[in-house]
């Protein structure tokens, strides 16, 4: 098991390096530091000296990929590409382009509001999707199943934006049940969190129910289910005890990969509800065109995805004793 995990992490190294090279190429080659300086300093009335000054201050004054002035390894390491992308490999995110804030520190503080909103959505969403899907599978072929399926297809055809805007309007502004947006630390955050969590669960439930229903129906056609029924077990027991356990592999494939992303929060939810999390941080960076932050967030997202894939493989061993990771 341990050697498997080590090997998986080693496999991930070239991918991490690849992601790093790709983002660096996108940000430094296509959009040169001169362009960035001009965007930050303002398009007009900017002198070449001011651009050079900005580049020197932010460490962009080296050649992009190859430094001919240095010798040996220095030709490769004394470049913008290496100086800006290599520290990311050991999670040193550096400072932002615009306000010179410490990106790593910012990530550490903003991660908590993100988690406060994404973890409840994740747990409540998964539980309700699985429950409804199992109810539909339990009464498959009936009117309940038909209308449940119709409802989930209709619900997944509506853009998340409508759920957010509609929910804010109806529950927040019209019925005045919750504050429309905002955030507070500690226990007081609860009243701000209810609305986004409710909306988050509702907007994901359509596609989730439809997917898990197919998973359960697939299981219900298998031999071991017939055996369980032949033993005289009730349909509910067959479904919850036997079906659910065996459906865990496709469920985990779908779910575990997204767990690391809970740190990341949701880009749209956080801006709509003014939650000061990482999603909001990213959107702000996009809108102010702070490439150092965007690049760090792209990189962080990729790392979380790769961690998610490794966790998925490990989780298979927990639910299925036949899976051996060697």
């Amino acid at each position, binding site marked *: 098991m341990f050697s498997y995990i080590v090997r998986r992490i080693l496999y991930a190294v070239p991918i991490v390096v690849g992601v790093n090279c790709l983002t660096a190429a*996108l940000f430094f080659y296509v*959009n040169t530091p001169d362009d960035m300086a001009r965007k930050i300093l303002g398009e007009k009335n900017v002198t070449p000296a001011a651009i050079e000054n900005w580049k020197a201050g932010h460490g962009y004054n080296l050649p992009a990929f190859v430094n001919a002035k240095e010798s040996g390894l220095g030709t490769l390491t004394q470049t913008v590409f290496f100086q800006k992308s290599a520290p990311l490999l050991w999670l040193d995110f550096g400072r932002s382009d615009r306000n010179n804030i410490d990106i790593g520190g910012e990530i550490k503080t903003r991660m908590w509001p993100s988690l406060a909103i994404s973890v409840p959505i994740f747990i409540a969403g998964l539980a309700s999707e699985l429950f409804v899907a199992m109810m539909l599978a339990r009464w498959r072929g009936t009117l309940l199943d038909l209308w449940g399926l119709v409802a989930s*297809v209709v619900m997944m055809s509506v*853009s998340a*934006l409508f759920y957010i805007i509609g929910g804010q309007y109806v529950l927040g502004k019209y019925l005045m049940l919750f504050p429309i947006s905002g955030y507070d630390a500690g226990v007081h955050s609860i009243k701000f969190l209810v609305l986004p969590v409710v909306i988050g669960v509702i907007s994901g439930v359509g596609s989730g129910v439809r997917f898990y229903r197919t998973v359960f129906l697939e299981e219900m056609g298998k031999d071991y289910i017939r055996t369980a029924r032949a033993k005289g077990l009730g349909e509910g027991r067959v479904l919850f005890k036997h079906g659910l356990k065996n459906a865990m592999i496709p469920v985990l494939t779908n779910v575990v990969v997204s767990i690391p992303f809970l740190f*990341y929060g949701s880009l*749209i939810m956080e801006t709509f509800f003014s939650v000061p999390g990482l999603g909001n941080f990213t959107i702000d960076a996009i809108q102010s065109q702070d490439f150092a932050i965007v690049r760090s967030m*792209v990189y962080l997202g*990729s790392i979380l995805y790769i961690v998610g894939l490794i966790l998925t493989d490990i989780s298979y061993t927990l639910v299925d004793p036949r899976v051996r990771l060697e």
Partner: protein
Amino acid sequence: MPVILATDLIVYALALSAAWFAVKTRRDGNVRAAWLELRRRRLAMISLALIALYAAVALADSIRYRDAAQGGGYSAEALSLLDRAASGLRTRAEKTYSAPFSGRLFSKESVELPDGRVVRDYPALKYPGAHWLGTDKVGGDILFASLKGVRTGIVIGAGATIVVIPFAIFFGVVAGYFGGVIDDVVQYVYTTLASIPGVLLIVAFMLLFGGRGYQGGLISEKDVALAFFVPNDRLFWLCVILGITSWTDLCRLIRAETLKLRELEYVQSARTFGAGGLRIIYRHIVPNLMHLVLITFVIQFSGLVLAESVLSYIGIGVGPEMGSWGNMINTARLELSREPVVWWNLLAAFIFMFGLVLPANIFGDAVRDALDPRLRGR
């Protein structure tokens, strides 16, 4: 004088492939069987008819030309067939907001009565009854704005996949058929791309490329650089990047299927007859992958249409000048906080979007059931 945008080519490609499928249905027995299977589902056929209606609007909005001007040369603006057909809606602008079917403006102004007195009242519209879905802040017709959004929706939904299908087929087949180092490289490339969170890759790409070329709105003289072809178009870049983020799934599917097909008897027998690698790929493998391509295309369609609205909200979607449902939702957000509420912009975007995405979801499911033999007859 015709003017063609890069994204118009996508719409033309979509129309051509639809026609090609129609011909193929008559000739090819397998496609015909799948079509007959599909025809039996009434809901799927209704959905197809609705999608076709949207596609027709998009096509009409993609054929555009400049009129000859009086003093020689051409008029500056290139109007599409849709602009011309709906010129009543396009040109009959009011002063500001008006509710659907309303005969009056939405805000009070000083109105001069026939007897000369001036009172604060809701002034009558210039064209009462003309605006079925109301008007927006500058008095533009909402129905027309929604219709202009149709092309954007169709282009995003179809274009993102169309743009990358050739690459996905090429790399998937090559990796699956030849294996070895080629397979390793292709797998490495798509795993790397897939591990970058889609939305962030889109953000990075659009920040870098999105600002170039035609941004939507009227097509001016400077956009038309190469005689009549406008190669740079923000919507096109959006299709490219959405395609890049979504091709990895298709490529993985195709690679796995090619691995399977390569070992089947008919490919083996073709090989013993001395057929070369390229010939086997072209004649025996690619045709048997097309159902996967089609399924992926229809399944991804609705998700991409929904993605457009979210991206436009973040500010990295189509340009603010271009008609799109995402932009309508974005403006509607502020209108909802007005008092009294301006709700019709949001409602129109909702209806038009829902009317495309729901049929696309239903039709996508039906196509998958009809083409994937493992699910057939269930």
